[in-house]
């Protein structure tokens, strides 16, 4: 227990890093994912193909491999960034595909009449998507989006192996330094993660029930 109390500052540091990574990557991935979803339903076949290819390739690649590319290949291209920035890129690129699929399922769930009405008053594809379809689609997929965010929060732990000093990295360091209190140290890390994931999970569940009632 002392090992945890003595290192509260390290925990705080790790927690804040994980939180920053989660928030930044979630925002970027949600934006990129929504864009990808729009691309995947667009009238331009080339864009549709590119969007599909992106999603299929990224979804079938382990996040660790994406990290490898970000951390070891990007510097080869003279793109020198901090490990944290590489981690944000890797997590964003990976989860954008999942956000895209969630948003796309929302688009498919919006009633056909909505799209027909939008088209019939003369809105273009971009307008009807932006003003009519997407606002409704995003609202219906809030619970799945939160679930992707929870997965993203947990997946930021991979960054520990790529030079980012976040919660899991702090955990391994402290565990190695305090061989007699390994379980307490790791339990502290677990509590930090649960502080982030459990409330989000409950929120998703509540919202899901509300959506279920509304339909």
């Amino acid at each position: 227990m002392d090992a945890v109390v003595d290192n509260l500052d390290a925990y705080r540091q790790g927690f804040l890093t994980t939180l920053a990574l989660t928030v930044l990557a979630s925002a970027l991935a949600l934006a990129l994912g929504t864009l990808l979803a729009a691309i995947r339903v667009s009238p331009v076949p080339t864009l549709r193909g590119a969007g599909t290819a992106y999603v299929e390739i990224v979804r079938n690649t382990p996040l660790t491999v994406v990290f490898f590319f970000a951390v070891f290949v990007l510097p080869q291209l003279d793109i020198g960034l901090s490990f944290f920035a590489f981690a944000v890129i890797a997590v964003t690129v990976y989860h954008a595909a999942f956000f895209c699929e969630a948003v796309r399922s929302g688009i498919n769930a919006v009633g056909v009449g909505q799209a027909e009405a939008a088209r019939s008053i003369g809105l273009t594809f971009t307008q009807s998507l932006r003003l009519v379809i997407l606002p409704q689609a995003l609202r219906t997929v809030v619970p799945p989006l939160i679930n992707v965010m929870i997965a993203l929060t947990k997946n930021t732990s991979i960054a520990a192996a790529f030079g980012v000093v976040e919660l899991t990295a702090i955990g391994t360091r402290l565990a190695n330094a305090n061989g007699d209190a390994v379980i307490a140290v790791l339990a502290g890390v677990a509590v930090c993660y649960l502080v982030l994931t459990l409330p989000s999970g409950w929120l998703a569940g509540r919202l899901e029930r509300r959506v279920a009632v509304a339909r």
Partner: protein
Amino acid sequence: VSEAVLYDAVGPRGRRRIVAGSVVGLLVIAAILAVALARMAAKGAFEADLWRLLTRADVQRLLARGLAATLRAALLAMALSMAVGALLAVGRLSRRRWLARPVGAWVELFRGLPLLLLILFVFLGLPAVGVTVSTFWALVGGLTLYNGAVLGEIFRAGILSLPVGQTEAAYAIGLRRRPGAAPGAAPPGGAADAAGSRQPARHPPQGHVAGVRDRLRRAAPQRPQRGGVPRRPVLHPDLHGHRGRLHRGQRVAVFAGSLAGPPHPAPLRPRRAAQRRRRGGLRHATLSHLWNMEVPIWEGQVIPSGFAMFA
């Protein structure tokens, strides 16, 4: 919306624009790729020496061993987490709070933690309490903890998504909630009817079969044979006009629409339940039985005449 509603078919001008845009886009991507490759080449990333590593036999063996270990860990973890997940799903669905609550907490806990942290927990935490684990088993253990919880929730969602009618139909033909719980031969309300009917007969169709059932039970062996279900075909008195022999594993369709009583049988008092367990009965109704509605028949089973069955 299916995608085609969102836009009209593209005309000739639009098609030209699409082709032009695609060509430009591909050229831009090709240019970026070319720059990237040029930079990598400048750093010597394509030196033959670097890649010759892959042709070495020992490196290839190492890679093959790694692949085999990955597959072994994945298969083991899959099998284990499916089993764990099934148990967790059933546990969380239990009506016993002392079971459902802890199982729910377990699931939420392990679903909410990163896989990497769970692997570390097994790898670093178990040795701390005196159990040595190899890296391989730490990986399998972590994977099982995490995926067991995730699969448990998936299984639970699957069970919950079944129409209520399936459960009601299962209860109606006398199956219990728990597969091993030895249903005896009582459809809902049937127990009260057979026990001398202290309550008014809410299920008239069953009432008149009760006597027949008693005769059948006297004729039937008290304990079922190995496997739980007697192999002997059962004569059934009244099956909605269907008189005949029912065999084990016979396909039976049950419609619970006309179920008169409460959808769930009242919970049995402990002594009563123990009696039933002693008496034996169906022991192997599984989820797949419920899903396929392939319901084994056992001696003395009474099916209310409102339910249709066919062979």
